[in-house]
């Protein structure tokens, strides 16, 4: 958060090119600070966090966020495979199913632009948790969890395809949705949506990524 200084949004109505007639032009909304949630987390979250600590994963977790009845463990990227293995094998945790891996691109989060997000499901205990790994755009490497969860195979290929996150140790990290010779990673925020203007009842409607945005 360098030049933006943690500012999420300025003004109110998305209009930046014209004079401020609304009076809201000076409004500054700051981005949320990346902080850990305090204990107790509530529900089964404390139980899961305790067992993770007892299994020696305490130092692998950078921070823990509880929000909207969901818990997210931010994992150090070099430890993600260990964490996944413990999460699956420890009988007290037993997250036997990996629901999916996907990416999120936060271009303003300096040093952690790309996030790989893992959703784990424990059918034994009927619980869900989320693991998240934040990595810099300049060095987009994450260890693959395919050796722990074979289902991650296609998910990681998709995340590589769409975000350019390289999963080290993946058996065959190739594009899965885009053609093999495609250039770029389409789900990143710096990749344009594309489109052409459309004429509708005499007026020209610009393509979606050039229309006014309010956020």
């Amino acid at each position: 958060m360098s030049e933006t200084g943690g500012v999420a949004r300025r003004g109110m109505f998305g209009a930046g090119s014209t004079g401020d007639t609304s009076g809201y032009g000076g409004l500054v909304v700051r981005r949320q600070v990346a902080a850990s949630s305090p204990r107790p987390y509530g529900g089964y979250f404390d139980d899961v966090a305790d067992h993770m600590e007892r299994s020696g994963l305490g130092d692998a977790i950078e921070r823990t966020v509880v929000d909207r009845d969901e818990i997210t463990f931010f994992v150090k990227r070099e430890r993600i495979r260990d964490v996944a293995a413990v999460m699956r094998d420890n009988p007290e945790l037993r997250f036997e199913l990996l629901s999916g891996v996907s990416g999120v691109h936060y271009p303003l989060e300096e040093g952690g632009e790309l996030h790989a997000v893992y959703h784990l499901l424990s059918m034994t205990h009927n619980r869900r948790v989320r693991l998240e790994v934040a990595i810099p755009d300049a060095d987009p490497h994450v260890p693959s969890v395919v050796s722990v969860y074979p289902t991650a195979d296609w998910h990681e290929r998709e995340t590589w395809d769409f975000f350019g996150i390289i999963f080290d140790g993946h058996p065959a990290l190739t594009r899965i949705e885009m053609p093999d010779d495609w250039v770029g990673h389409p789900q990143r925020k710096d990749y344009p949506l594309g489109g052409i203007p459309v004429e509708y009842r005499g007026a020209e409607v610009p393509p979606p990524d050039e229309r006014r945005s309010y956020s």
Partner: protein
Amino acid sequence: MTTTYDAYSAGATDDGTAEGKVFNLAGSDWDEVVAGAKDAADDERLVVNMGPQHPSTHGVLRLILTLDGESVDEVRVGIGYLHTGIEKNMEYRTWTQGTTFCTRMDYLAPIFNETAYCLAVEKLLGVTDKIPERANVIRVMMMELNRISSHLVAIATFGLELGATTVMLNGFVEREYTLDLFEEITGLRMNMAYIRPGGVAQDIGPAAIAKLRAYLERMPERFGQLRKLLDANPVYLARTKDVAYLDLTGCMALGVTGPVLRSAGLPWDLRKTQPYCGYETYDFEVHTQDTCDVYGRYLVRMAEMEESLKIVEQCVERLTKGSAKDGPVMIEDKKIGWPAQLAIGTDGMGNSPAHIGHIMGESMEALIHHFKLVTEGFRVPAGQAYAAVESPRGELAAHVVSDGGTRPHRAHFRDPSFVNLQATAAMCEGSYVADVIAAVASLDPVMGGVDR
């Protein structure tokens, strides 16, 4: 046509030629392959590129089969032929417009896509408890009707792929009746964008209730007929029993959910284990089989349709007599809830005359509010949420990230077709070519959902 050039493996060798002979087939010319394979004594393995244009691959699925005679040595799955960038597109529309996009992902289960997405958005907004009861009952009813129509297609196309046209026709006729209901309720047969953040697009009318009652009377008998056609049909049994075996361990490792998982004996159904939309208040059962084969998956699907009918019946009761007899179908919060009373006008369906009269004739504030809500949309507090529903194919989940704006920062769908397709190799390798068709059909992948 026999050549040595293979366009699909160009680059396999330096001069762009394939390792062996290449046959380019357009159908009905298998004699060439048979003749060609006969005189290639040293080259016994045949690589067959099945799809993406093939009638039995459920749309544009590409299977690369390595055959040793009739048996399958290796299966590789190629997807991506129907990738349309729906997730990317959703980042450029308001939260409400998102339903119109995600409904087109798994096109046989549009209501489930919409519901998963809306549940995630509602979780982000923190309004999950404020969804009116009538809206929840309608959601459940639509989902169960959709489950029936989707399973009917699964069973019908499966029949077609095995060469049983009767099954196909019977299945599609019943599906058409289900789609008629959708048309009556939402105005559209498919891709309805009916479930919206905050509730549903419009209320159910008396005509739809009458149609639902007729449907409930008709279907049990029709399911019985379908069962008579298939349950003990010796040809069907020969093609499905002990075929495409995938046990519980395999399902867990490969992330497989839905009827395939339940055919391996685990009664895991999110409607029971992690209920949403009030599923815990309905009376229904989760059916399992322990055969782990194609026939077991068929039985699970059949039983699920019968259970769905039970749920629809309970929904109709609630909508006509019970606690959800009347009331709003959209959240009361005017900052989120779209006008949910639609009417047919001279230019098609639109807002009701009462609403138009209110915003155009009575209240300037209401007009401003309507305009802002429709053009700008509502803001969703920053954060992320994950909401999963039990779709006809398994766990369908939406992972939605907001940066606090009027558009999703990221919307990702965990589509069960995508995940389940990974099991193709585990199910098919070592079996006969003909069983590959049965295996893929029993997974019931929908390529719109796989590729998104």
